[in-house]
Every structure is written in C-alpha cells, then in structure tokens.
C-alpha cells in the first residue's frame, strides 16, 4: 500500500516557543553550536492509491492551517 509522508512546519516568521526550548536544552547539554530549533510534524498516511491532488486537498482541509503552517508531502514506498 502506498505511503505518503506529509511534513507540516510552522511558518518561518512565527516564534516556535517549543523549538526554542529544545534549542536551549541542547545548549545546556553541551551543544553550544545549536543556534535554533524548529519543531514540525510528520504525518504518515497509508493510502489505497496515491493521488497528489487528493493529498493536497487533505492538507488544505485538515492537516495544515495555512495561517500558521506550511506543508510539503511525498510518496514513499
């Protein structure tokens, strides 16, 4: 069965406060080279058949909020 990976990320202009916490924690754990972190979502869908238009519709309808997020997706395996 085809699998689709949808990546949803917060728009670059928006403060990602959870990402900032992770970045700060990595700094404290001895990784001072980390200057920032942003957290997104990976959504894996099992679909009966891959249809790019339909995946886009799923993203627009539910998986991503265009006010705050960007998305991209790919078919895998």
């Amino acid at each position, binding site marked *: 069965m085809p699998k689709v990976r949808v990546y949803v990320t*917060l728009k670059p202009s*928006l*403060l*990602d*406060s*959870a990402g*900032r*916490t992770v970045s700060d924690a990595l700094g404290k754990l001895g990784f001072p080279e980390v200057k920032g972190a942003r957290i997104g*979502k990976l959504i894996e869908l099992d679909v009966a058949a891959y249809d790019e238009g339909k995946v886009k519709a799923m993203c627009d*309808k*539910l*998986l991503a*909020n265009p*006010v*705050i997020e960007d998305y991209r997706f790919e078919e895998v395996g």
Partner: protein
Amino acid sequence: MRVAVIRFPGANCDQDGYFALNDELGVKAEYVWHEATSLAGFDGAFLPGGFSYGDYLRCGAMAARSPVMDEVRRLGKAGYPVIGVCNGFQVLCEAGLLPGALLLNAQQKFLCQDVYIEAVNRNSMWTRGVDRILRMPIAHGEGRYVCEAETLHRLEQDDRVAFRYVSPTGQRVDEWNPNGSTDAIAGVLNEAGNILGLMPHPERACRELTGSVDGVLILRAFSLVHA
C-alpha cells in the same frame, strides 16, 4: 433567548458556561453534542474551553470540522451572538469564522491566573458599555494570538480587536501580556461583530464566589440581544 452550549469530546468548560448562562445571566442554555446537525430554535451559541479531541493535530482543528459547526456558522451569519472561549476561540479560528490562530504561549508555560483586559472595540454586542478594565482568569497553554500583518492591519482598521491584555490600571505593557499575543490581543470579532473569540474565561467570572463578576459584562450580550 436559547443558547446552545456546544459539547465537543474533551471540552471541560461546558458546565461553567451552562451554569453561568442559566444561573447568572438568566438565559436558557442547553447542551448540544457536537454531532448535532441542527441548532433550530437556538438564538446563540457558546463554544466552551477545554481540550477538544485532546488538542490532537492542532488545538480546535478537529472540533472545527464537527457536524454542528455548519449550524454555528449559520447562526453566526444570521447575526446571532456566538462566543468561543479559550479552546472555543481556537475552534472558531480553525473553522475560519475568525481570522488568525493561537499558538503555544511565548514563555512555553501553561498559564492559570487572572488577567486584566480592556475592550478596544466598544460598539459590538459583546463590548458595548464595557468601559472599565475587567479581571478574569485564563487557563491555557496555547493562547498566543497570531495573524498575518495584513490581517492585523485590517482588524485594527475595522475595529475588530475586541479585547487587549492590559495592566490593572489599563497600561498596555509587555509584562501584562501573559502569552505574548500579537499586539496583546485577547479577543477578536468577526466583521459583523456578533462572533467573539476570547482566551480569558468570562464564564468563570460570573459570581463573587469565583472571585470576579466581570464576565457578566461580556456574556450579558446573550440576554440583551434579540437578533
């Protein structure tokens, strides 16, 4: 005035709304399950706070696509009072009934405390006559209001910023903006001014026992308005 208190799975302020409206505001509030396909006979809706669908995916995302939301949309379009508090605000944004979105608080903490808010708009059914600083609680992890610059400009131009976080004396300063909301926005209105989204909880500030009765000044819209 019959108000539908919408119950989404995971909502937890539905009872607060129900009792505030019935006992303190003198309007008839009734619970309506999110799968309802009709709000016939209702003249308003209250979307409560909580964690609908466990906040999965995004706060309010799944609730915004519930069957009952078509009817909430219908009431809103017809000019009836519709308010979404906390998670209810997130639902209204996700449903596209209000602009913008609510993100994780800037300082990453869940906040449970009193805040002070000021009505910016003074002409809507929700804000008319609210001419003093109100105190009421917030309880949220994701209450940082954001929207695109263009949207913000439009909101301000059209006088649709309903409430802003301020200091107890009405100063707009960062220390009193609890979650880092853009322009300290605590609540916004739709174009017609009958749909309000608000992060603070007016329904928890309707009797002396809970520490404040300032919420009445907002929720009284339900008893004053006969759309």
